[in-house]
C-alpha cells in the first residue's frame, strides 16, 4: 500500500504567542515549532498500515524551509521518504492554497491512501484534507478513529458528536482525516534518527498560487467574556481565598 501522510509544522503549545507589528500574524521568528498533533497520529496510523500490508509511507508537507524540522522527525519515526512543497507564502496560507500545493505535488505519485490530521493547531481550518480529496477526485471520510481492511476498500470508524460513531466503507484510493487518540504514538529511536539522514526529501516549488479565498485582516487576543477574578498570593493564600469564595460567594461547596 502506497500511503501519503500530509503533515504540518505548527507553533508549540508552550510558546507564549506574540503578535507581529502589523497585527496580522504571529511573530514567526520568535516561535518554537513542532509537528501538528493530529498529523502525528495520522503518521502513526500510516506506519501501522504499512506494517500490516507492506508498502511505502511518504510524508508531504507544504510550508516554508523551517518545515524540514518536522519532515526529518517523521522520517526518523519511520516514513520512507518525503516531499517538501517549499514556499514562505505557505506559512500563513488559506486551506485552498495549501491543498492546491499538496495536490500538485502528490497527484502523479498515484497513492492508494492519503492521510492527514483532522485539523491544524494553528489556523485550525479543518479543511485541507477534504479539499485535497476533492482536488484529487478521491472519496474521503473524516475524524477517523479506526481503520480496517486495505484490499481495494477500507472500512473506517468516523467519530460523530456526543459519543456516537459510524462505520463507513469506501473504495481506494481515498483520503482520511485522522482524529487524535486513534492509536498510541511511537517516538523516534536513535537508529531511526540515523537512518532518516539517508532518506530522500524531494523539494517541490509550488505553482503560482491562485488568489487566496480568505484574508486575515487582524489578529488579537480575545477579550474575556466573563469577569474572571484572578486570585494571587502564595499557593496557601490563594487556596484559602478561593475556598472562601466558593463557600461564601458562589455557594458551590
Amino acid at each position, binding site marked *: 500500500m502506497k500511503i501519503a501522510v500530509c503533515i504540518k509544522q505548527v507553533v508549540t*503549545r508552550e510558546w*507564549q*504567542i506574540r503578535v507581529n507589528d502589523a497585527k496580522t500574524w*504571529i511573530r514567526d521568528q520568535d516561535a518554537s515549532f513542532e509537528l501538528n498533533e493530529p498529523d502525528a497520529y495520522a503518521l502513526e496510523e500510516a506506519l501501522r498500515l504499512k506494517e500490516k500490508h507492506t508498502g511505502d509511507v511518504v510524508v508531504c508537507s507544504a510550508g516554508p524551509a523551517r518545515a524540514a524540522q518536522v519532515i526529518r522527525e517523521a522520517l526518523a519515526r519511520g516514513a520512507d521518504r518525503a516531499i517538501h512543497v517549499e514556499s514562505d507564502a505557505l506559512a500563513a496560507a488559506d486551506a*485552498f492554497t495549501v491543498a492546491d500545493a499538496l495536490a500538485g505535488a502528490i497527484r502523479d505519485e498515484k497513492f492508494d491512501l492519503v492521510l492527514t490530521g*483532522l485539523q491544524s*493547531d*494553528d489556523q*485550525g481550518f*479543518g*479543511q485541507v*484534507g*477534504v*479539499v485535497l*480529496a*476533492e482536488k484529487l477526485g478521491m*472519496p*474521503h471520510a*473524516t*475524524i477517523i478513529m479506526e481503520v480496517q481492511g486495505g484490499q481495494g476498500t477500507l472500512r473506517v470508524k*468516523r467519530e460523530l458528536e*456526543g*459519543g*456516537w*460513531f*459510524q462505520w*463507513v*466503507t*469506501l*473504495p481506494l484510493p481515498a483520503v482520511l482525516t485522522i482524529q487524535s*487518540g486513534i492509536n*498510541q504514538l511511537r517516538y523516534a529511536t536513535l537508529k531511526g534518527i540515523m537512518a532518516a539522514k539517508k532518506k530522500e526529501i524531494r523539494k517541490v516549488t509550488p505553482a503560482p498560487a491562485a*488568489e*487566496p*479565498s*480568505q*484574508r486575515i*485582516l*487582524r*489578529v*488579537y*487576543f*480575545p477579550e*474575556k*467574556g*466573563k469577569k*474572571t477574578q*484572578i486570585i*494571587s498570593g502564595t*499557593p*496557601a493564600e*490563594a*487556596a*484559602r481565598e*478561593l*475556598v472562601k469564595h*466558593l463557600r461564601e460567594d*458562589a455557594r*458551590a*461547596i
Partner: protein
Amino acid sequence: MVLVLAEQRGGKLNRTTWEAVAAAQQAGTPVKIVVPGSGADTVAAEIAAADAAEVILAEAPALADYTADGYVAALSALIAQEKPDLVFLPHTYQTRDFAPALAARLGRALVTDVTAIKKDGGAIVYVRPMFQGKLNADVSATGPAPHLITIQIGAFRADAAKRGASPAATRKVSLAVEATAIRQKPEAPFKEAKQAVDLSQAERIVSVGRGIKGQEHLKVAQDLAAALGAELAASRPICDAGWLPMDRQIGSSGQTVAPKLYVALGISGAIQHLVGMKGSRTIVAINKDPEAPMFEVADYGIVGDLFEIVPAMIAELNK
C-alpha cells in the same frame, strides 16, 4: 439572500441549526433555510417557525442517510440553482465532513468556526479563533459569491433566532443524485458500550488536562475531588493517552456537563473542551499559562503550579 443548511439525522433536527439561523439573520436578509434529506417534512415544519422567507425541502432518495458525496452533489446543484449571496452552516462534525468539498466543488471561499460577525461598511468581517483559541482573527472572504460560513457551536444562542409571526412557506425541490455517484457506504450510527459514568448528573466536577503531566500525578486531582465531593473528569488528551477511561471525557466528542462547580486543572481550554462545560455555574481555572483560554470562561482563576495549589486547596477544605 442568506441560505442556511439545516442539519438533521433520522428526521431529528440538530438544534445547532437554530444557532446558524441566528447568525444568518444577523448577516443579511432574506434568510432561507434548506433541509436536505428524504422525507424530512417534520424537520422542515419545525424549522419553519423561524423568521425566514422560505424553507426549502431538498429531497433525494440518496440523501436518506448522510454521505459526503451525496450532500456535495445535491447541495452544489441546489446552490447553483438558488444563487444565494451567503451559505451558513453549523460547525458540526457532519459539516466538517462535507462543507470543504462542497466549497471546493463550487470554487467558493469557506470560512470555518466563526464566532461573531461584524459589518465594515458593506463588507462582512468574520471573527474566528486561531492557535487553539489563544488568538482571534478578523477574516474577510474573497472571490465570487456565495461564501460558505460555518458557525461555531455555542457562539450564537439558539433562542436568539427570531421566530416568524406565522410558519415560513415550504417548497419541495427534488434533486437528482445518482446513487452510483456516492462512494461512501455508511452503516448505522452507534454508541460504544454503555457509559459507566454519567457526568451530567454530577454536582461538582474536578477535571484534568495536559498540565497534569503524567498518570502518576492523577492522585492529587482524585484527592481534590474527594475533598470537594466531586467526580473526576478530563479533557480529551488525557483519555487519548489512556490515563483515564473515555467515559470521563468532557467536550464535543465526550460528555456535556453543567455542574454547580467545575474545577479545571491544567486545561488550556481549547474550544472542543469548552463546548462541553461552559454552561457550568461556577468555573475555576488553575493553570500556569496566564493566556490559557480557560481563564476567559472562568469565574475564579489562579495562575500557578497546580502541584502547589491543589494540595493547599485540599488542606484548606479539610480544615
